């Protein structure tokens, strides 16, 4: 293995990228741009969910009830409906995400301590808002009922300290307010740092399409040297982003990097090697850049987005899917970023992921070198 050969290829690749200004900027900054945009947009603090209320009871009690439910920022009353048809229409048009329907005997049933029928209708096409609305309504309703009940019981001479005898203490570690953004950003970082792999998939096909591969193959360069030389520039691109993304995230989004930055950097370098190796093996098979792009979207991008546990937890995937996800470097790296940012763990915890990523990287590069033959056809 000649370092001289690898370095010659790397230098050539770097020159190639650097001389095309617009591509250079895109390659360097796309991961960061996408991350900043997504983090900004997906900082979902659900609030102001529009709901409608249909009150068949129209008693003081029901009115007080409605007040209680809609107090605060979480829910907004979009309209007081007067019929089911109206509710239908509003749901159809997406003007409301949920509706609360109070049955005629509400106040009376409440008085009699009977089961209180309350209908909540949610728009099933929007999970987040719907579920959120339901929980919020249910919670507030319970408080309301509890109050009423306590008063009732006191009136009957029964004294109860609290209607919630169970003291449930909930601690949220690493992210006390359970802000989704804090949890999401490390995951997003792991996703965007996989983008350079898509560029790597192109590089061999580029030489083929432009005809430069022919002269290259006529030299003594070995396959491994060629492939390694080609991924080094993109490792650098990745590491560049590894530095600026946390800086920007901390500055703008105030998330904290509780672990060691040096460790993060080192593990990120291993990830870059691994994911770029995957990009390379995709690129080895394709003769044209267009085909390489299409394949890399299918094999690198979409799985990296959907299957690495960033948006949907690995635990809830079917067994086979989880197994497949293990072969994606992104899955392991997502666990690394998650561990380093919020919990702030160290190498003693993260070493298995480092090993996995390194192993995958070596296997991918070896397979790429094996499948890439120094022949034109």
């Amino acid at each position: 293995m000649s370092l001289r050969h690898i370095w010659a290829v790397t230098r050539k690749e770097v020159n190639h990228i650097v001389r095309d200004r617009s591509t250079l900027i895109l390659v360097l900054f796309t991961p960061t741009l996408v991350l900043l945009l997504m983090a900004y947009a997906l900082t979902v603090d659900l609030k102001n969910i529009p709901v409608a209320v249909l009150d068949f009871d129209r008693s003081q009690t029901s009115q007080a009830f409605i007040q209680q439910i809609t107090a605060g920022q979480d829910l907004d009353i979009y309209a007081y409906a007067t019929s089911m048809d109206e509710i239908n229409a509003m749901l159809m048009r997406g003007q409301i995400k949920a509706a609360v329907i109070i049955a005629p005997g509400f106040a009376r049933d409440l008085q009699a301590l009977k089961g209180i029928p309350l209908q909540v209708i949610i728009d099933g096409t929007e999970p987040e808002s719907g579920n959120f609305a339901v929980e919020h309504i249910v919670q507030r309703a319970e408080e309301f009922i509890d109050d009423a009940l306590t008063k009732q019981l006191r009136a009957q001479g029964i004294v109860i300290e609290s209607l919630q005898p169970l003291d449930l203490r909930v601690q949220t570690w690493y992210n006390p307010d359970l802000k989704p953004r804090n949890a999401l950003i490390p995951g997003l970082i792991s996703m965007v740092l996989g983008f350079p792999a898509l560029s790597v998939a192109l590089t061999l096909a580029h030489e083929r399409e432009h005809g430069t591969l022919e002269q290259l193959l006529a030299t003594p360069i070995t396959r491994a040297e060629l492939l390694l030389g080609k991924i080094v520039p993109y490792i650098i691109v990745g590491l560049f982003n590894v530095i600026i993304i946390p800086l920007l995230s901390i500055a703008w989004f105030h998330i904290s990097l509780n672990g060691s930055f040096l460790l993060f950097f080192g593990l990120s370098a291993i990830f870059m090697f691994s994911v770029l190796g995957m990009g390379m093996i995709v690129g080895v098979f394709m003769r044209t850049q267009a085909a390489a792009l299409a394949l890399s979207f299918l094999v690198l991008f979409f799985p990296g987005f959907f299957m690495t546990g960033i948006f949907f937890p690995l635990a809830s995937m079917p067994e086979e899917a989880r197994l497949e996800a293990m072969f994606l470097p992104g899955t392991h790296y997502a666990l690394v970023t998650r561990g380093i940012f919020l919990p702030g763990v160290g190498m003693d915890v993260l070493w298995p992921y480092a090993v996995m990523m390194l192993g995958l990287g070596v296997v991918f590069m070896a397979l790429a070198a094996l499948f890439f033959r120094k022949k034109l056809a």
Partner: protein
Amino acid sequence: MLKRIWSLVIKEFIHLRSDWWLPAFMLIGGAMELLGVAWATSRPITNLPMMVFDQSQTAESRAIIIGLENTKTFRTPEQVNDMQTIQDAMDRGQISAALVIPPDYAGQLQSSTGKPTLLVILNGSESTPAQAANRAVRGLARDIDQRILIGRLGLSPDQFSGFNPSLRVWFNENLSEALYTTPAELGMMLEFTVLLFAALAFSRERELGTIEQLLVMPFSSLEIIVGKSIPVVIIGFADFLLMLGMVHFAFDVPIRGSFILLLVLAFGYLLVELGKGLVISVMSKTQHQAFLLVLLVGMVDFMFTGYAAPVESMPQVLQWFANIIPAHHWLTILRGIALKDAGLDVLWPNVLALAILGIVIGTFSLQFVRKALD
């Protein structure tokens, strides 16, 4: 003129045939991928790993553990004997939640004035599972509360069965996760497919130097544009049908509204994305550059399809911005027609927006591309 366009289209398809990987991947690969992704991730949050530190070891504490299992949100909780294990597992991200049951739990529970406590620890580094765990645990706590109350007050279950909200879910009665997520996944893959294909249209010829050949031929720029666009539209539309069929048959995603309307609007949407792709394709000197632009644009658009978060919850600025993103309107239309049986009467604002965007993007791209070609 039509004949010339036709000959261009034929040339494009012949070209595609020798490079058949490209449409094959896009069509079949895309559909298979959607299938795989939907199968893996369009599910309720279940099977979350959890630990229990049961310091009470009584029938009552065991009842809680069984209750947790029954929620289906958690897999069988692992029983541990100290906090350190929990700490480690949390740090490593191996569990989504942990429950600590104090030694005096059973006693407090049974005493009429007792205050039983439970400690739940949520792993905040992953918000979706944490939220699901939170919900499940609170639900369990409510049940326990009610049972305690009924016992202490000596009420019979009929007298006070607690609070009974009945929940009706419209458009998605089975609360099938697939109905939430697959439309957005479909939208994303379709957009990327069309954008990528269109973006490669001219950038490829430019990069390889064959564009001069194209320009000296007796075709007007309009004819060239149309000739290049037709294969993209055909493949994009075929892709849409394939993916729609797939989610319909594999995941029971219904098409409750007018199928014809859906097809027409889908076609319109494709044209809009085609326009965007063509602009990218003419702006780019190389395929690499075109692809990077597609990535950027696609990711930005994807945010507004509502996959990861509803648009209403975004900062106001972004909500306004969403209105000029074609994908946003398209997803509303797709969900509306498929799931809500919505018609034009309901969807017209989105259709109008899409049409306006289409005209604006279309005119701009046509001008831009023509100028670039001349």
